[in-house]
């Protein structure tokens, strides 16, 4: 048994320790607010087979071919190869957006071809790069939006956990951040109303729902309103992409987490003039790309999240 089975509670020191670790991109996990370094993926995988395990991939940017990674499709394939090699098959996968770089049909086709090799159900939310076809999202909605509301939001249940996929990349306002909008917020309020407070909630969307870097637009202007509807729930996990690096924050009963990209890294806030693709030495690239493995165990408040780089 791994020690991640037995932790509960959270101290300030541990949260700070976690936040320090997050910036370094080391392989780590959180359970009960306590971070642990994990030497190998298998150590965590073997920990518990009773709970629900699912995967998060993000920001595959299929079609991107610039110096930061001339072959984004290739690294997506490496990520899916890693998924297929997991000792315990996940229940499903979520993709937190920017599937493609330019919303082209061929990019979506290529992405689907690779991702389908995981033979997992995939629940998508769009990133801003998925909605820039001439019809502003028609291609995305035709492929992934059939059972969704509005611009593509929806919810579903798995193993007693309530999953909510939100869209915060539509109708962005000048000078603002990510945007959910009133229609979606009203839907969210109704979606969670009447659910028992003991229901674990997993909220996922492309842009972080918490403000990571205001100057770079890494936040959602009405994200706090969305989280306001979830105050009564004892366990809320918010999973995002967009910033191409691992970041984590725990605030009360809410755990915020961002996943790596499978395509290219972006700089840490404040370390570069812009949030654009970051060119790193070739032998470093795969250490900065990766996937996230999320496990929920009954009677534990927090989900265990393991970020695993493609290499290293």
């Amino acid at each position, binding site marked *: 048994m791994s020690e991640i089975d037995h932790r509960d509670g959270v101290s300030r020191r541990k949260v700070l320790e976690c936040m320090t670790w997050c910036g370094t991109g080391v392989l780590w996990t959180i359970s009960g607010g306590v971070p642990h370094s994990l030497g190998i993926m298998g150590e965590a995988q073997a920990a518990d087979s009773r709970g629900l395990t699912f995967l998060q991939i993000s920001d595959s940017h299929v079609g991107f071919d610039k110096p930061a990674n001339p072959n984004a499709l290739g690294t997506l394939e490496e990520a899916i190869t890693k998924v297929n090699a997991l000792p315990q098959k996940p229940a499903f996968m979520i993709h937190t957006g920017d599937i493609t770089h330019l919303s082209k049909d061929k990019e979506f086709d290529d992405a689907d071809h690779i991702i389908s090799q995981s033979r997992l159900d995939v629940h998508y939310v769009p990133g801003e*790069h998925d909605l820039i076809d001439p019809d502003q999202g028609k291609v995305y909605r035709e492929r992934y939006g059939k059972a969704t509301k509005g611009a593509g939001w929806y919810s579903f249940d798995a193993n007693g956990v309530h999953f909510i996929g939100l869209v915060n990349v539509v109708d962005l306002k000048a000078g603002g951040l990510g945007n959910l909008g009133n229609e979606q917020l009203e839907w969210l309020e109704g979606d969670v109303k009447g659910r028992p407070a003991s229901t674990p909630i997993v909220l996922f969307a492309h842009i972080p729902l918490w403000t990571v870097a205001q100057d770079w637009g890494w936040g959602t202007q009405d994200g706090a309103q969305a989280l306001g509807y979830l105050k009564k729930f004892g366990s809320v996990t918010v999973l995002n992409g967009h910033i191409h690096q691992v970041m984590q924050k725990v605030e009360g009963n809410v755990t915020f987490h961002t996943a790596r990209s499978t395509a290219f890294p972006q700089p840490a806030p404040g*370390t570069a*003039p812009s*949030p*654009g693709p970051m060119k790193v030495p070739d032998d470093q690239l795969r250490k900065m790309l990766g996937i996230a493995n999320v496990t929920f165990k009954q009677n534990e408040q927090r989900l265990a999240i393991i970020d695993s780089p493609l290499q290293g």
Partner: protein
Amino acid sequence: MLRPIIACSALGAVVGSVLAGGVLFARAEGTPNAVTIDNFFFTPGTITVKTGTTVTWTNRDDIPHGIASSNNAFKKSAALDTDESYSFTFTTPGTYQYFCYLHPKMVGSIVVEQ
């Protein structure tokens, strides 16, 4: 282990933007109807043109950007990939605020004079 790489890459980007800034300045002087996008900024952030001028935006970033009027006062662009451009001819005097509809923190304005 990662720190020196990030610092190094940030330094490279800073040097790059300084150099690019010099080039942009020269280009802007020659053609005051041109706006370039570098490092998630419109440069120059504000330009003043005569009525009837065609303004051209060119994206120099490795990430697509899109031009949209803040109050729907002019036609928005398609998403501009690297080195792609968008042009619009302003026929009515006024101040036109605009932003990148993919990265709305990016804002600029066009002042159209008689």
